[in-house]
């Protein structure tokens, strides 16, 4: 059984169709990224899956349960990592993690979790004094303390500096390696590429493409561009056999400023959401 199965999901706000017929399958143990610009319907979709929002139409099953009817037992199998919370500001990291551990039947060891998210040195610091990146690590700790089967991460690295993002990615990879299913929304392409097994692009409330980061939008089969400097200036050839093209060209001597490029995930993405 899939961790998440969605068919024909729709949700409108005051005449605006935020989610306009989404189908989605996420396998157990998979890291799945939902990419899309602001206002594409990412957060609405995720909040419906989390059971925080109702829907107008469609079938939704999360860990075999309809989120609209999710009970305590179901909630205890989910981990939701918040995006911009500033709660528990006067509790220390240790106090907060120990407190949230009490909510679950079979929580992880709080000290292990603090260690896992890399906050051991900050265990005695109050949550309100943490940096942005550290605070999100605490959010992850609180999200995974209940040993969830499925973790939701909604734009987890927004506002991070590059180093904090890399560290955060390491943490997500660690969770994925333990077999946790992860649904991630992001508008960073490199994030999706670095973390996700599969990616869906959401635009205007619909999924416009789905695949692995390598194959998304026909990227793997797209023609490569061979470009070099000739007597007539920059010259480009689009080809599906760049190796052959270069072999032929190079018979006439050295090729100045030679490059071979394929569309980046960003090129594909911008095309898709345009």
């Amino acid at each position, binding site marked *: 059984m899939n961790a998440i199965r969605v068919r024909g999901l729709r949700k409108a*706000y005051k005449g605006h169709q935020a989610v306009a017929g989404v189908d989605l399958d996420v396998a157990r143990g998979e890291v799945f990224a939902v990419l899309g610009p602001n206002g594409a319907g990412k957060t609405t979709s995720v909040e419906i899956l989390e059971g925080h929002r109702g829907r107008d139409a469609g079938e939704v099953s999360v860990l*075999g349960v309809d989120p609209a009817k999710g009970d*305590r*037992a*179901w909630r205890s*199998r989910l981990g939701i990592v918040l995006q911009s*919370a500033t709660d528990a500001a006067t509790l220390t990291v240790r106090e907060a993690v120990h407190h949230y551990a*009490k909510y*679950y039947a079979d929580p992880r060891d709080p000290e292990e979790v603090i260690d896992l998210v890399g906050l051991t040195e900050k265990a005695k610091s109050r949550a309100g004094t943490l940096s942005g990146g550290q605070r999100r690590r605490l959010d992850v700790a609180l999200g995974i303390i209940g040993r969830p089967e499925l973790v939701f991460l909604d734009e987890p690295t927004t506002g991070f500096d590059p180093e904090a993002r890399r560290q955060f990615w390491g943490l997500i990879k660690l969770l994925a390696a333990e077999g946790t299913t992860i649904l991630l929304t992001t508008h960073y392409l490199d994030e999706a590429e670095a973390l996700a097994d599969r990616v869906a692009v959401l635009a205007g409330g619909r999924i416009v493409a789905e695949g692995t980061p390598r194959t998304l939008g026909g990227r793997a089969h797209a023609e490569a561009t061979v470009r070099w400097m000739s007597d007539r200036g920059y010259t480009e050839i689009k080809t599906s056999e760049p190796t052959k093209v270069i072999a032929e060209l190079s018979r006439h001597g050295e090729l100045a400023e030679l490059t071979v490029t394929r569309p980046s995930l960003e090129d594909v993405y911008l095309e898709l959401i345009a």
Partner: protein
Amino acid sequence: MTTATLSKKALPGTLELGLARGAAELREFFRQKENLIFTVSLPAILMLLLGTVYVHEAAAGQMFAASMIGAGIISTSFVGLGMSVVADREDGTLKRLRGTPMPFTSYFIGKIILVFVSSLFEAVLLLVVAMLRFDVELPSTAEKWFTFGWVFVLGVISCSLIGVALSSIAKSTRNAAGVLNLPYIVLQFLSGVFISQAVLPESLRVAGSLFPLKWVCQGFRSVFALNDGYAVMEAAGSWELGKIALVLGAWTIAGLLLVTRTFRWTHEAS
């Protein structure tokens, strides 16, 4: 089913989690200086300032201290709790809790614990100030203390519920300060805290009598009055203990209904 095999260990009970919430709430509350200054100490400070003007004889001190305790516990329950729920909505506490298996009832038990403990601190501090500065005497009979106890409990619970219900109207903590403080301040004038209700025009007296504050203060005055003869100073000329219980009980039920119907986890319309 996977659910059955996974949940061999049962989820913790609602009351157990409520107590854990209460402990965390208290810890957070007492670590915030603004809570200690405004919520816990303000009634004692007001007692000191206003008492110096108003209190020239023992009887007046007793009555004024009683009214101030009433106003104080309503400040911690109605205003304080309402504000703390709005803050929980604003800083993500409620959103986080909603994503966990913690039942809503446990959250509310935690809040009630917070309100009882902070109200008790506030009342004790105020009494100490009143005793030291104005020679206020504590009630001497078990019967008076019993009255004190039930008025305190009913007052705190009813005003907590109304505060939480009103917090759903407020969109932000800044907004909530107005939504909650305005009725509280107006009611202090209509309920015999600063001015005896007997001198108010009838329309204002009736308006004040619709709300819990007047009844809580009247209940406390019956406890702290030097003798029951002082009941003639009340608007009705008696302590009306039965009526106090009825009004506060009715507000508790109304508050409970309001909270279950209006409580919102987040600001966003669903």
